């Protein structure tokens, strides 16, 4: 092994290049006059909304590669608009509901477009879109009974879920399935059984969670795994301290978040990793001292049992989660993250991008804004009182709507949905 004076590796070269671009932006920002700074600090609401609404109405031919992801496009756009505190006109809302209705499979679940096989990810996106719209017509359009059948069909014997018939299995599939089941009040023991075991097997030696057992710890899957464990009431089975120690080191000198150790910063991780922090802040098991659990990560007997005497109100977990607060201050640097999002990811002309040098897109717009929300509300004990001025990077007018960090929908839409589906039979 040679000393550091030898040639830089690919990782180092790429990292230094990104650092260079990011620092140039920060230095430029620091050097310009106050009134010019103000412009750059502002969340460009109008331009973002214009970019988003345009996409909802029409997309160019280059989007053909996303033709099996149209509910995602709906969700990325609708959720972003909702975060910005705006709404669609009634006609456009109806069109969304009707279109997603065309994507709904007669046997349950939603596909990537009309006539496509139902898929867990597009189901998640469709459900979250409908919840974001809110209202009776939107929420009633979901065939919960058939959706439950679809979810069961996706369930594998080992506890995990497949994304579609004979499709791939990973932690993402677990999250998308459990998330929609929870919010729609159709989550039961049959769906929950052994999911915890599968996710546990995906926590790596690094502390984060991988897509499949053995793979590398990754921000997207860590969010999915943690959120799912919370929803099924088994979060204490994870090695939370190891997880925390991994995720805190995902924030580097660029101020934004990376998805994996020694990889590059990306604005979308503002949500995937950022929300991990938001979740951990409300997980009381984080305060448990695990010093004596040296041989195993498993809390024996913690897995949910089937008998009715131990019945867990799954539907209430997501709702009750908002009430607890295990930590006052977030474990990440909120201002630094907001700085990356607004100065490096935001485009003045509308939309957000992965990092300087990349193009804007709806996916990054959605997750940069979601991450901004997480950061802005990270010091708020509850969501009823708005954040202090000191919690925001830039003017107070930058404040976006709060989200439910497990589902990533705007909070008051989640609450409406929770009430709507609570009353309905399983």
């Amino acid at each position: 092994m040679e000393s550091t004076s030898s040639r830089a590796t690919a990782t180092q070269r790429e990292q230094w290049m990104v650092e260079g671009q990011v620092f140039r932006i920060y230095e430029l920002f620091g050097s310009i006059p106050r009134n010019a700074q103000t412009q750059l600090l502002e969340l460009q609401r109008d331009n973002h909304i214009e970019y988003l609404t345009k996409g909802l109405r029409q997309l160019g031919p280059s989007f053909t590669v996303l033709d099996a992801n149209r509910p995602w496009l709906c969700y990325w756009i609708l959720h972003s608009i909702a975060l910005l505190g705006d709404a669609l006109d009634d006609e456009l809302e109806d069109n969304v509901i009707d279109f997603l209705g065309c994507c709904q499979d007669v046997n349950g679940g939603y596909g990537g477009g009309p006539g496509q096989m139902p898929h867990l990810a597009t189901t998640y996106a469709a459900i979250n879109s409908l919840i974001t719209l809110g209202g009776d017509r939107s929420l009633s359009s979901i065939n919960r009974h058939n959706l439950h059948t679809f979810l069961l069909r996706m369930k594998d014997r080992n506890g995990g879920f497949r994304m579609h018939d004979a499709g791939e299995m990973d932690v993402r599939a677990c999250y998308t399935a459990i998330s929609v089941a929870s919010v729609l009040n159709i989550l039961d023991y049959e769906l929950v059984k052994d999911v915890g075991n599968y996710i546990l097997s995906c926590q790596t030696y690094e502390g984060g969670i991988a897509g499949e057992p053995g793979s590398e710890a990754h921000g997207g899957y860590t969010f999915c795994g943690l959120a799912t464990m919370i929803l099924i009431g088994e979060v204490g089975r994870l090695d939370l301290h190891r997880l925390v120690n991994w995720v805190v080191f995902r924030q580097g000198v660029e101020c934004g978040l990376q998805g994996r150790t020694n990889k590059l910063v990306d604005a979308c991780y503002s949500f995937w990793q950022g929300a991990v922090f938001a979740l951990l802040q409300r997980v009381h098991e984080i305060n448990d001292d695990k010093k004596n659990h040296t041989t195993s990560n498993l809390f024996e007997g913690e897995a949910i049992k089937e008998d009715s005497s131990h019945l867990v109100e799954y539907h209430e977990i997501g709702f009750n989660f908002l009430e607890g607060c295990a930590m006052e201050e977030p474990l990440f640097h909120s201002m630094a993250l907001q700085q990356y999002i607004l100065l490096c990811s935001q485009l003045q002309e509308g939309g957000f991008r992965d990092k300087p040098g990349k193009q804007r897109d709806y996916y990054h717009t959605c997750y940069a804004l979601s991450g901004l929300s997480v950061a802005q509300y990270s010091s708020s004990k509850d969501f009823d009182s708005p954040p202090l001025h000191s919690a925001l990077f830039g003017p107070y007018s930058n404040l976006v709507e709060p989200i439910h960090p497990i589902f990533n929908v705007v909070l008051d839409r989640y609450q409406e949905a929770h009430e709507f589906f609570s009353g309905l039979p399983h």
Partner: protein
Amino acid sequence: MDSDEEEQRIPLSQRPEWSDVIPVQQDDGPNPVVPIAYKEDFRETMDYFRAVYISDERSPRSLRLTAEAIHFNPGNYTVWHFRRLILEALNCSLHDELDYIERFAKSNSKNYQIWHHRRWVAEKLGTDAATKELEFTKKILSIDAKHYHAWSHRQWVLQALGGWEGELDYCQQLLEDDIFNNSAWNQRHFVITRSPFLGGLEAMREFEVSYTIKAIRANPENESPWRYLRGLYQHDTEALISSLQIPSLCVEVLSAKNNFIFALSLILDLLCHGFNPSEEMKNAVQVLKNSDSQPSDLSLADTICGILESVDPMRKNYWAWRKQRLAAQGT
């Protein structure tokens, strides 16, 4: 399809072999949202695909059609799924299918569907496919050494089809190319713990610790080997706090007074597990304190938290939380 082929493409409506099929239009409803301005050739291809999908025609022409549809949109999982049904029904050569995927993957590797398809084919071929699959993933990794799907696929191949013999060497080679490649470190952990040819983690630990310490010495700012080192003791804290090499390494790194955050962090964790620090270690830590900071009667763990709050400000809140928790742990 490159521009030459596009110019030569004959519309399906003009191909004699498709004359009996009535294309089925997409039903987006009257006022769809997120409508995509499809080009004519894509629209037509999908109209014909829908026809054979709905009629469940598992024929050679359907197979060719799925390739055309995939070319336009490799993310269409419904098309891939139907392609698999056809391959099964026609009992096609799966080796040819691997070649097809390989040609395709070079330009479309960041796509779940390709990898799932590849796994399905390889599974059907069984252990004979092991070598080819390891070569294929190696090719992808030579372009992008951290390709997530490629690594997952490679791990699946090893577990389902075998081929472990050369894997540790492969990790070694990748780490020589780039010691910061966390995917390679992760793979190393995978091999150490699961290869039927090695003795398991405990048997390999001594060698691995030496290897990792060398890597840390070369680049103490490299997070990967530090995490890997902890990983070697994940289920054996007793062995961790009894190690002589690890505290020695930490002191060495601290003494260089540069890139010592991971070293301090590791010492902190050792202390939380009941480790007894030497005087040398305590002194090495004290040297790093700011002159204006804490009183000297604080515990070593407390002192470390204080130093880290100062030298690692991005994680200020985390180190403050750790310090706060020391009281609860009795450290």
